[in-house]
């Protein structure tokens, strides 16, 4: 029976010879090719993805022995001076130039100095980690020290950022703080979170936890409740049962420079916090009466209690950040004025608080309250009277929040109308389920056509049924109207919540700051710097509506590059 997986590769190409050859794959065929090429006078680079060459074991060999098969030429390859072996490496990029290939190779760290290692296995005996032994197909465990191969020991410590940490926009050491909780060390856990994240409690209450989607435990049963665990340790502190450790507030030396931040949302506050710790004088200008941005005026109290928000914002003030509410930039205080007043850098993070219009007749009637406006008024203490019957248009979290708030405002009958199906709904599953539990009705595949009014006030809505067609640019299936399916509903209040866009008109025309086609602020994606030197932008006003933790990440990133900019000045 001939071997299954490899063939002798006799080079018939006369062009080869006295040249440089790259061989990708250090298995049997790779080894054989490498030897042939080297023998015909070529310089050979043998690049292998795994930590050792020799190939994976062969599924069978001609002797029918049940031991791992090793290429007989392995030693020859290792000794050949014309062959350079590069293991644990990936081909990153190949470019062709002047008939040659320029190859970029990334060799991953193995964390073991092979010349010193004498194969004593002491490290393996003490390693506490149990991980699936890939070589044995997961039928047994191995340690974090990969042995790779029993015949050709090649040690390799597999150290990588856990998938949760990689997914988190601020790269929290989730494994670390959860480990502390498991050991009952709550203070240490919180300290670890606070090294990176100034708002553990806020995120612990409202983060849509992208990390949990990726959690490896989810592939076995359910992912860890990472968000709720963070909330648990963060809340202990808020209840004053735990005093913040002094090491959490280590301020850098006073840099003698001032930074202005426009917008006291999660991005602005995170940036202010980090810059203040670096020793800058930071002033945050907030147009609304309360700081917090969408956290304060977008997210309802039943998701994020006010005292939680206030305590964590107070912690930002405590590191020396000045927050000036009711201060609108543009009217009487322009961007230029800020620079004239001695601020050497500006971070614009005004969020996306403008409602997208439905573009249907009757949209301007009384009783039609855009979702963001509805939630803002409610959160600032001037709730709108919604009446008994409320319809909400949209499928995002603002729509769900609006519906649940309307219910709490006394509405009897709250219906969400969404033009696609549940599958395409962008709101998070837990929010949708909670809303339904509370009695919110959701009608899928329905789009609004026209608002009916009585005495200038909204009284009804004409709708149309939809069906799903081919996916559009967003990757979701495009809704197509079903002809003749119009129907009318009666209502007292209509809350359209089909999306938000940033309102950047306050900058005026001569600000020198370029916008994108989508109406967001254009920045250098690497540094968040705008087209005007010294002015940075991030958060929803730069990306469009996203989740809080992404805004926090943007704020932290801006702090890094504002610091860099000011130090270079």
């Amino acid at each position: 029976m001939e071997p299954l997986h490899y063939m002798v590769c006799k080079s018939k190409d006369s062009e080869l010879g006295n040249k440089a050859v790259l061989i990708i794959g250090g298995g049997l065929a790779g080894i054989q090719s490498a030897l042939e090429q080297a023998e015909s006078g070529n310089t050979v680079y043998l690049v292998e993805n795994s930590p050792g060459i020799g190939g994976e074991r062969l599924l069978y060999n001609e002797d029918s022995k049940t031991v791992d098969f090793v290429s007989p030429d392995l030693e020859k390859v290792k000794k050949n001076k014309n062959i350079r072996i590069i293991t644990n490496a990936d081909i990153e990029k190949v470019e062709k130039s002047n008939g040659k290939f320029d190859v970029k190779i990334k060799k991953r760290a193995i964390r073991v100095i092979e010349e010193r290692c004498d194969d004593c296995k002491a490290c393996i005996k003490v390693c506490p980690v149990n991980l699936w032994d890939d070589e044995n197909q997961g039928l047994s465990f191995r340690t974090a020290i990969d042995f790779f191969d029993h015949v050709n020991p090649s040690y390799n410590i597999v150290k990588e950022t856990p998938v949760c940490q990689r997914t988190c926009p601020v790269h929290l050491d989730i494994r670390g703080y959860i480990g502390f909780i498991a050991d009952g060390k709550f203070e240490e856990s919180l300290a670890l979170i606070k090294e990176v994240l100034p708002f553990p409690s806020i995120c612990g209450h409202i983060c849509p936890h992208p990390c949990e989607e990726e959690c490896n435990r989810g592939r076995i049963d359910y992912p860890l409740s990472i968000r709720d665990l963070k909330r648990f340790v963060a809340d202990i502190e808020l209840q004053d049962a735990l005093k913040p450790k002094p090491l959490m507030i280590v301020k850098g030396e006073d840099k003698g420079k001032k930074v202005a931040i426009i917008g006291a949302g999660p991005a602005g506050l995170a940036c202010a916090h980090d810059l203040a710790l670096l020793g800058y004088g930071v002033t945050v200008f907030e147009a609304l009466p309360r700081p917090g941005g969408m956290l304060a005026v977008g997210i309802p109290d039943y998701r994020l209690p006010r005292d939680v928000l206030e305590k964590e914002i107070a912690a930002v003030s405590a590191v020396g950040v000045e927050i000036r509410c009711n201060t609108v930039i543009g009217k009487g205080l322009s961007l230029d004025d800020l620079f004239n007043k001695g601020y050497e850098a500006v971070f614009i993070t005004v969020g996306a608080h403008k409602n997208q219009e439905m573009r249907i007749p009757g949209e301007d009637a009384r009783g039609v309250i855009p979702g963001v406006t509805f939630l803002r008024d409610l959160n600032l203490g001037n709730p709108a009277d919604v009446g008994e019957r409320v319809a909400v248009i949209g499928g995002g979290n603002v729509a769900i929040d609006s519906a649940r708030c309307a219910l709490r405002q006394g509405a009897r009958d709250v219906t969400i109308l969404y033009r696609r199906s549940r599958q395409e709904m962008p709101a998070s599953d837990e929010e949708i389920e909670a809303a339904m539990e509370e009695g919110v009705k959701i009608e899928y595949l329905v789009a609004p056509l026209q608002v009916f009014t009585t005495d200038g006030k909204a009284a009804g809505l004409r709708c149309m049924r939809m069906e799903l067609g081919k996916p559009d640019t967003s990757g979701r299936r495009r809704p197509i109207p079903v002809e003749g399916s119009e129907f009318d509903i009666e209502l007292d209040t209509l809350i359209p919540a089909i999306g938000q866009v940033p309102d950047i008109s306050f900058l005026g025309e001569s600000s020198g700051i370029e916008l994108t086609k989508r109406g967001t602020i254009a920045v250098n994606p690497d540094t968040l710097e705008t087209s005007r030197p010294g002015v940075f932008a991030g958060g929803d006003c730069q990306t469009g509506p996203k989740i809080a933790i992404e805004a926090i990440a943007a704020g932290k990133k801006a702090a890094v590059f504002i610091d860099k900019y000011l130090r270079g000045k």
Partner: protein
Amino acid sequence: MVEEKKRYILEFSDIPAERQSVQELPVEERINNFNEVSLGFTEDAAVKEAKRCLSCRRCLGCGLCLAECDKDAIVFEQADEKLDISVDSMIITTGVERVCSPPPERFGYGRYANVVTDIEFERILSDNGPYVGLLIRPFDGEIPRKIGFVCWADNNEGRGESGIKSLSYAIHEAMLTKNKVDGLEISLFLPDNDDYIKELKRNDGKVPGVSTKKGGITAIKEVQESKNLIVRWDENGNVREDEFEMLVLSTMPEPTTYIIELAKKLDINLEGMMVDTLLFETSKKGIYLAGGI
């Protein structure tokens, strides 16, 4: 190296199974006010939930090995290296990867502890494998007396050359198994297809005592207590049934995901370049393929 979903994880006692749930305000207590709905974890639940973390089973940087290594051979801080080289030609020899097609879950793989793939079985047979060469069942460590090899007898259409190769491999493993344990009963399920029968005849001398069952498998069920497997198959229109202590599913060689990714990067067309190729030039000048691709 991508970690795949592994199988018997719930069997291990170091992983508490249940996800803890947070307390919530009951609906009637929340729809008339703005009090927070979620009440969070109790301390007890939080600690239990935190213990569910698998730590992703990677190096934690604890430093125990560093302390233990008296040769100072371990460097935690070693960084990745970047190398730039310039070459005249490239030879790609990234081998094959073995996959089950149709998905092995259809035969109970993943659900039934004693259904393994042929690669797993090869590990079980190997002296360097998880059971140091002892032929035992993953479920209870018993030595199986009756093993069935399933060569994708899903229907009677073969799966081309790859299918034939998976059959010859199954025959080979059956032979090794026979040599290992005396008095073992081995059955081989294969499609009632001319090419397969031909391959079987070619190997006939090598596999004495292996009974072949031709025809499509219609159902596999696990016996609750013994975790044995009851296989039902269709032979010439007659439904047959038998009980096995272990089942081995055949896999087929396919191009690795690594080479598919690489081909994308290099912009080469892999179509028609399958298993067992000699050194030959690809659609791009100067790039060659060799070995089993």
